[in-house]
């Protein structure tokens, strides 16, 4: 018998992931129990200051607004994504439509955000149109509020939801819908009682893949948000680079990590066969071979 080469093949990835992922997570975990240094950094010693700061009212408000933004953008995305994916799966031009969904998704993230500034900004497309048509005499401030953040979050993560939904709906046997209708169900009943239970895995994955990045989002509220749309991601960044309270930045990150992991585990338990699809879609996400 030959020697098991498994450890040999896996050791580079094990070393890399330990060094640049697990150890950094371990460091922020320990930092989250320390006191903040005078000029950034931390002072060794155990304390829970960074965690008790999380119950402070400003932080709770920010958590609430983060939740609000993430929930509403996820909701908008799912409402748009299910019918779109259904249409694509039933169409004769599947691969062309898939391609159409993937192109904007491949376009640079910041360019997509910028496009919305070009449209909604004070000197943007919409304001120029409204003013030159005489509807408004001054420009209107469309940006820098939570609606702009929700809109652009939905825009950014919409393909994340369409792709997994498409891949599950495509496997659905549509003759079941006809059967249900032959047996007297209305079209809506057939969709609700036959289609939806069968595509639960896809819906779960779609929610997971839009809600998690939306909840942990940083760039969109940073660029397009205002004082009403400060999100947890912005607070982490601020504590890290501006206020230089590293224990607080760490404790927020630790809580966010734990919540995300629990969320994923919960969703996977909820839908046993979703775990495979989460893994598959995580990789197919960017659609190299979609």
């Amino acid at each position, binding site marked *: 018998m030959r020697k098991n080469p498994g450890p040999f093949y896996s050791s580079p990835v094990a070393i*890399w992931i330990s060094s640049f992922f697990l150890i*950094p997570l371990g*460091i922020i975990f320990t930092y989250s129990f320390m006191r903040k240094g005078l000029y950034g950094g931390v002072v060794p010693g155990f304390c829970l200051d960074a965690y008790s700061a999380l119950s402070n009212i400003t932080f709770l408000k920010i958590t609430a607004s983060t939740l609000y933004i993430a929930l509403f953008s996820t909701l908008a995305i799912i409402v*748009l994504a299910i019918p779109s994916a259904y249409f694509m799966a039933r169409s004769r031009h599947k691969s062309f439509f898939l391609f159409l969904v993937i192109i904007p998704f491949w376009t640079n993230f910041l*360019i997509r955000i910028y496009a919305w500034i*070009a449209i909604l900004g004070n000197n943007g497309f919409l304001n120029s149109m409204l003013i030159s048509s005489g509807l408004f005499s001054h420009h209107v401030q469309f940006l820098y509020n939570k609606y702009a953040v929700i809109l652009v979050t939905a825009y950014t993560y919409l393909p994340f939801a369409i792709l997994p939904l498409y891949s599950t709906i495509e496997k659905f046997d549509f003759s079941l819908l006809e059967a249900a209708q032959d047996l007297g169900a209305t079209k809506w009943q057939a969709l609700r009682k036959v289609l939806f239970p069968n595509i639960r895995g896809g819906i779960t994955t779609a929610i997971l893949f839009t809600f998690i990045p939306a909840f942990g989002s940083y760039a969109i509220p940073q660029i397009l948000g205002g004082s009403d749309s400060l999100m947890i991601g912005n607070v982490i960044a601020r504590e*890290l680079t501006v206020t230089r309270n590293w224990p607080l930045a760490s404790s927020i990150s630790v809580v966010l990590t734990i919540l995300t992991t629990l969320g994923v585990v919960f969703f996977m338990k909820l839908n046993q066969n979703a775990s495979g699809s989460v893994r598959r879609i995580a990789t197919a996400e960017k659609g190299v071979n979609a």
Partner: protein
Amino acid sequence: MTKKAIISPFVFTLVMMFLYMPLIILVIYSFNDSKTMAWSGFSFRWYQELFTNSGSLWRSFGNSVIVALGSATLSSVIGTLGAIGIYWYNFKFKKILQIATFLPLILPEIIIGVSLLIFFAKVNDLLSLVGIHFPLSLFTVFLAHTTFNLPFVLLIVMARLEEFDFTIIEAAYDLGAREIDTLFKVVLPIASPGIISGFLMAVTLSLEDFVITFFVAGPGSSTLPLHVYSMIRFGVSPVINALSVLIIAVTILLAFSTKNIYKYIISK
């Protein structure tokens, strides 16, 4: 007979308009002569400005390309070996390794950015004790990008290995091949389509990343997304419109060509 569907085509059309309208507006206004979004005539002046008068932008672009190619190469090598090890063999702590490589895919990017920034600061502290300087630089960006690319390469290559029978490897051994021969003459050729798409995905992810890079880049190691970010902070600029159009065009070209490359590999 069922009625013709109305709602789903309508929503799909709406979604397509929603997805493409911003991009189309960027394309149109990149040819606008005026500095504002009011149309004042067709012109190539912003493209001219982009190519003749934007040195720092192209330096950032150069940085992006270096980091993308470097991190995609390294993560493809490490990821491929890891995929072979994890998919075909059993060993201690395999389950933990699988979870540890899956987690970076689902965690919000900011967590990875923040933890790496704090980690690099700690490493710099430790190294400065022995007189070595380890500042944030293009090298730390490269390390960070390799880290977030790895799980993707790993999973893509594993998906490719799933399609193959392990008995091929056993046959190679039975016929007397050494480990190294099996790797280079049997396993890697089998896995190559997966490795190529993993590599391409890593290049795309790396070129695209803003959040993680934002935290781990030092002075002088700006990448293209960081440069675009600093331009955006000054408001709408027609030069960004022109740049966006180039990026969109390259994206579409790449999407087409990778699709074709993929078909070509499969048909071989």
